[in-house]
């Protein structure tokens, strides 16, 4: 494997260190994220997911352990953390709450401007990012971000990070609090981003997001890696997942239930696969129309 884009080595992090309220959040997490991957980070609330991803671009400094981005130790004496922030685009939970500018265009341009790009390059990046998130610039660029719907605001915030053209996009619960349509839209964007060759890391509680998008899964519990592997492998370990308080994707639940009822359906993770598997099974039993 080529040099990983992000590598965490035995990362520990304790909140409020040196105060009477200190609380350990990460206790020795090691993981690697390769270029072009799509990795999902799962785990119950309080398992350290959000803390972990804030180490990816140097927002938090590990109390012990190392974080390397593109081979550079982020906390080496003369490390360029701003360069790492350009490389690793971090989208926080409910990113629409960080919008501030008068127009959508200005808000999305904030990141590229901070990077010191020329005005034409900024304009081009803004245009491209807005199209990528499905907000036609001619319609949305001049509008106030605060006059948009919740889902649109989230997409503007996403565009604000995408406009910086990060090599890896890290998202904390990108679909939280959205309706079905909004979730679908975000998934489509992330799939497009991944297809363009960008690396995607997402923290999520939605198993369907994982099934639809991710290739690899890392499950955290109490600040350590409890389970890791390819999506299929991890979802095959239903009992281990349940013990961690995690569910299976809808498609997997349906196909496994059907099998338990005696219908010979192949395992599926995405709805599309489930539909195909069920069709095949029905054809095999001769019970339904193809």
């Amino acid at each position: 494997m080529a040099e990983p884009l992000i590598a965490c080595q035995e990362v520990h992090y304790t909140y409020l260190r040196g105060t009477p309220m200190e609380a350990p959040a990460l206790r020795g997490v090691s993981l690697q994220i390769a270029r072009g991957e799509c990795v999902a980070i799962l785990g119950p609330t309080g398992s350290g997911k959000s803390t972990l991803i804030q180490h990816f671009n140097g927002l938090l400094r590990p109390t012990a352990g190392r974080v390397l981005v593109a081979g550079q130790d982020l906390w080496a004496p003369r490390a360029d953390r701003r360069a790492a922030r350009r490389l690793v685009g971090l989208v926080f939970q409910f990113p629409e709450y960080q919008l501030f500018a008068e127009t959508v265009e200005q808000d999305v341009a904030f990141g590229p401007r901070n990077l010191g790009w020329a005005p034409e390059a900024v304009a081009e990046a803004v245009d491209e990012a807005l199209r990528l998130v499905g907000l036609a610039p001619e319609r949305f660029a001049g509008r106030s971000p605060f006059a948009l719907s919740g889902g649109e605001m989230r997409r503007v915030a996403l565009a604000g990070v995408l406009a910086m053209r990060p090599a890896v996009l890290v998202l904390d619960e990108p679909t939280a609090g959205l309706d079905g349509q909004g979730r679908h839209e975000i998934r489509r964007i992330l799939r497009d981003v991944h297809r363009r060759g960008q690396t995607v890391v997402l923290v999520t509680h939605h198993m369907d997001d994982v099934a639809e998008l991710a290739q690899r899964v890392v499950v955290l519990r109490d600040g350590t890696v409890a389970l890791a592997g390819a999506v299929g492998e991890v979802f095959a370990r239903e009992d281990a997942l349940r013990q961690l308080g995690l569910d299976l994707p809808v498609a997997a639940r349906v196909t496994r239930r059907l099998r338990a009822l005696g219908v010979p359906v192949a395992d599926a993770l995405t709805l599309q696969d489930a539909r195909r598997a069920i069709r095949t099974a029905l054809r095999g039993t001769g019970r339904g129309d193809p």
Partner: protein
Amino acid sequence: MEIRSAVPLGQYVPRDSALHRLDPRTKILAVTVMSVALFLTGSFAGLGAVALALVALLAVGRIPLGFATRGLRPLAMLLALTVVLNSFFTGGEGTTPVVTLGPLVATAEGLRAGALAAGRLLLLVTLASLLTFTTSSVELADGIAWLVRPLRRVGVPGHELAMMTTIALRFVPTLLEETERILKAQLARGAEFGQGPLLRRAHALVPVIVPLLLSAFRRSEELALAMEARCYTAGAPRTRMRELRWRPADAVAGALVVAGAVLLVRFR
């Protein structure tokens, strides 16, 4: 980057200690009495005695000394300024010049006055922190509500004041967390804070202040809605879940504080 660990000032430290168990009213009154006494005293010996007492009380409250002094760090500038200004601007007859900088003369008397003022300020802040370290915001508000109760006669809306205090105190950590989150989000977008000339620094804060204000308004609206949904009526007669009750320990603590304050004022 963690704002909460950088600002221990005014933070509650949940512990089980004799100080934590005291009635909030006792603690508020004690801090008030001691503050007045600190202003009336003018001797270094007095300030020293109070400092020793505070260190002892921090130990009783199981607050690490290092944690408490960290909260005082932001005061350093102010304290230095107090000493410098006092020493240069105390002049007149019978003063002893120490340092002369052109037309400015620092006097020994001024230096003394400055050091006293700075010491007083330092102790006052520590005293107030001792109260917030050992008293939760809800207890504080309950205590304040009880203390302003007599003012109802003259038309002061005691209950509303207490409710406002509770809410304000309750939202300090929430807003700090929110600030931290927004700061980080904008840092992740390549923003830089605290660099360059003052005007640019102020300008750099716009992407933090606008979302922060919006979020504060949103939260207050949600809170108002939640309170109304529970039929909250300001000033309506209601029973409380936690009754404030004076205990023997409160009498002891009160007596000690009053005795200390009297000594402090007598032997200034």
